[in-house]
């Protein structure tokens, strides 16, 4: 903190002081439910009310959208969102519910929408008055995003939209969707156009939102059917046929690689002293408490060997993130590209080892009182496929690594 403060510009320094003061008295009380860790987890009206109130309050105080121009509802500051984010994290604030809007829609609108549209959409987006969702993936367009088939047909200065989007977080609460649609079937990449489309106002008419159930039995994603949704041409971003390029802006900001800092808060409910020591390595703890034929599992050398393999990977990932910043020792890009593959495969493999440690007890779900570690591991294993599949499958990650870091020929 002190280190960061040292490098502040005068504007940042002032703003940091302001934030700290405001936060000292304005962080809301913890909710009655278990605090959420991401806006994508918002599932009930109760969640929504609590977190929207917080976003609104932070927005009104100027902590959301600090770097956006004032005419779009922003704070008109320079590189101050970073400061607000740091201070909110320190103050252990609740999370923002409007993550898709703040992190993906806002920068895309900012860089690609017409002036009028920016003035119309951004203020309510920043305040949380209107929530957003993302309509990119389709049943037939997963890894190959550019193959989206949801079609927007031009009718004068209107567009008629038909199609099917999937894997949409919080669509049930969204007023708007950022939508990648096909406008020309003869050209894969140049046949795409980017729109913002109303969802909430069209529900039960030309738009259907259905919850998707995950492999774990939990909800959290939706799918949307568009059956002749008619929208104004004014809701188009950038030119017809430029959808792919606009989508790249969205994805860059999703990955944190965009030029605008996403407003982010959080930290609420995080435990004061999380055991991050090596002796506190979760699989080691688990092996110590589980038995294998009535002996402690950690004393089985084959189990211990696997636990240590995972520990080497876990520590390795931490050091990998440390090394990538050291010029002369690591190429940043080569390391950064590996991060998703490394961490998602680690989580999956660690959960698989946990199930091996648990043996028969690994059959028990989180709702069984006899389940070790409260049954988190079977669920963790199932959930892990979300990460190895979403946002570029592990297979796609290896393509990217081979192509961008090693210069191999494209596999597609």
């Amino acid at each position: 903190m002190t280190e960061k403060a040292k490098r502040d510009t005068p504007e940042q320094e002032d703003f940091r002081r302001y934030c700290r003061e405001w936060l000292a008295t304005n962080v809301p009380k913890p909710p009655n439910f278990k605090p959420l860790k991401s806006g994508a987890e918002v599932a009930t009206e109760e969640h929504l009310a609590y977190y929207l109130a917080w976003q609104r309050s932070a927005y009104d105080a100027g902590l959301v959208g600090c770097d956006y121009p004032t005419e779009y509802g922003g704070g008109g500051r320079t590189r101050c969102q970073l400061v607000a984010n740091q201070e909110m994290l320190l103050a252990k604030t609740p999370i923002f519910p409007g993550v898709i809007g703040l992190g993906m829609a806002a920068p895309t609108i900012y860089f690609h929408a017409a002036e009028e549209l920016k003035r119309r959409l951004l203020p309510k987006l920043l305040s949380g008055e209107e929530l957003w969702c993302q309509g990119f993936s389709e049943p037939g367009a997963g890894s190959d995003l550019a193959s989206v088939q949801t079609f927007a047909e031009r009718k004068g200065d209107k567009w008629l939209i038909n199609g099917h989007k999937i894997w949409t977080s919080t669509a049930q609460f969204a007023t708007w969707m950022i939508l990648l649609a096909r406008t020309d079937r003869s050209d894969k990449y140049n046949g795409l156009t980017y729109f913002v489309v109303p969802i909430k106002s069209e529900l039960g008419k030309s738009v259907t939102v259905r919850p998707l159930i995950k492999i774990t039995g939990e909800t959290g994603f939706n799918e949307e059917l568009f059956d002749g949704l008619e929208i104004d041409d004014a809701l188009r971003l950038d030119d017809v046929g430029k959808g792919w390029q606009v989508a790249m802006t969205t994805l860059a900001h999703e990955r944190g690689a965009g030029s605008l800092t996403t407003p982010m808060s959080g930290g609420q409910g995080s435990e004061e002293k999380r055991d991050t020591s090596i002796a506190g390595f979760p699989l080691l703890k688990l092996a110590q408490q589980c038995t294998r034929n009535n002996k402690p599992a950690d004393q089985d050398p084959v189990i211990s060997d696997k636990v240590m393999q995972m520990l080497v990977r876990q520590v390795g990932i931490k050091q990998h993130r440390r090394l990538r910043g050291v010029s002369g020792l690591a190429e940043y890009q080569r390391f950064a590209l590996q991060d998703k593959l490394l961490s998602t495969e680690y989580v999956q493999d660690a959960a698989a080892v946990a199930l091996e440690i648990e043996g028969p007890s690994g059959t028990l779900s989180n709702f069984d009182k006899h389940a070790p570690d409260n049954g988190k591991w079977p669920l963790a294993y199932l959930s892990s496929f979300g990460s190895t599949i979403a946002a570029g499958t592990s297979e796609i990650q290896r393509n990217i690594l081979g192509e961008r870091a090693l210069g191999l020929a494209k596999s597609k």
Partner: protein
Amino acid sequence: MSESTTALQAPKDFGFNADALALKDIAETFFRENLPAHQLHQLVAQDSNLQNGSACRWDKNLWQRIIDLGWLMAAIPKRAGGMGMSAVAVAALVEQAGRAALPAPLIPTLGASYILSACGNDNADKALNLICEGKSFSYAASSQGGSWEHTDSEVILEGNKLTGTVFFVQDAQKVDYFLVNAKQDGEPRLVVVPANLHGLRVNPNTIIDLTRDQAYLEFDQVAIENSQIVSDPGQAVAALEEATPALLTLVCADMCGAAEWQLQTTADYARTRKQFDRNLGFFQAVKHPLADFMVAIDLARSHLYNAACAIDYEPEFAELYARMAKAAANDAASYGSKKSVQLHGGIGFTWESFVHIYLKRQLHSQSLCGDAAYQRQKMAELITKGEKNI
């Protein structure tokens, strides 16, 4: 072992004769017609609330048809009124049931029938008669820690009363009887207990596998009669050891069948799904894991039939081979289950897909009768023990 000294030479074809083939063919058709994957999904995956993971989801009418086909008594010797099929034939039957991920107590009942046959006394034969009459059984022996050994039961038999708790009992809500491993004076005894006996509490676990149920049984001074004790004094461990290879092959057969379903379903998806203007199967990142999965399945199946054949022809090698088979089946299942979900991409992550049902069943099966590392540890012990004979 020279050729001349062995009475029964293991046949090159595993003893897979016309009867066995007929049984396998009937089972294949039966499950294809009566339990295709979409029907299975309707049966076990209507409710996605994990909180209801203790529910017992099965089709009793289908089970009655299985009883009527006589499959419960497939492994029971003819002298005890059964079909007396070879272990190879039974494996082929169970492989088909596994391919359908059958939610029913077929494996527990077949397993109990092997244990009871090995007991070889009148009480045991009476229990076998119950199976021949269509009653289902499940063997209960595990400690709270989930021990895979036969001598770790925490149920006590004292003065003809059962006391204590036994864990990880398979399909406990479905079966009519439990075959309980209880300790009398520190020695295991095997006791047949009706599932509805007074003083016995069946506590369902909340589990991940949608095609099974599992429970722990609490015995509170449950009075039993001598006729319920099916193992002669000091003979329970021997009977259990004799039945162990069969218990292992039953689970392996189920896993091999399930794995073949996973392979074919994923290959089918790879043949039809398009990405980047190509069928998924074009990409070696899809093709090669599927090839490796197929190889792993076929290795596991080769072990499975070798183990089953050894039960029939070379019982002295049966445990070693059966443990090899379980190790191979576990390795195939863990690799293949993961790939079956991963290669389905987004749809594989949804509840509406069928692949998760098999993933969850395989995870459960992997823990039954010991995981791969445990089998290999036992193998090493067997080889060391029997160095000269193996």
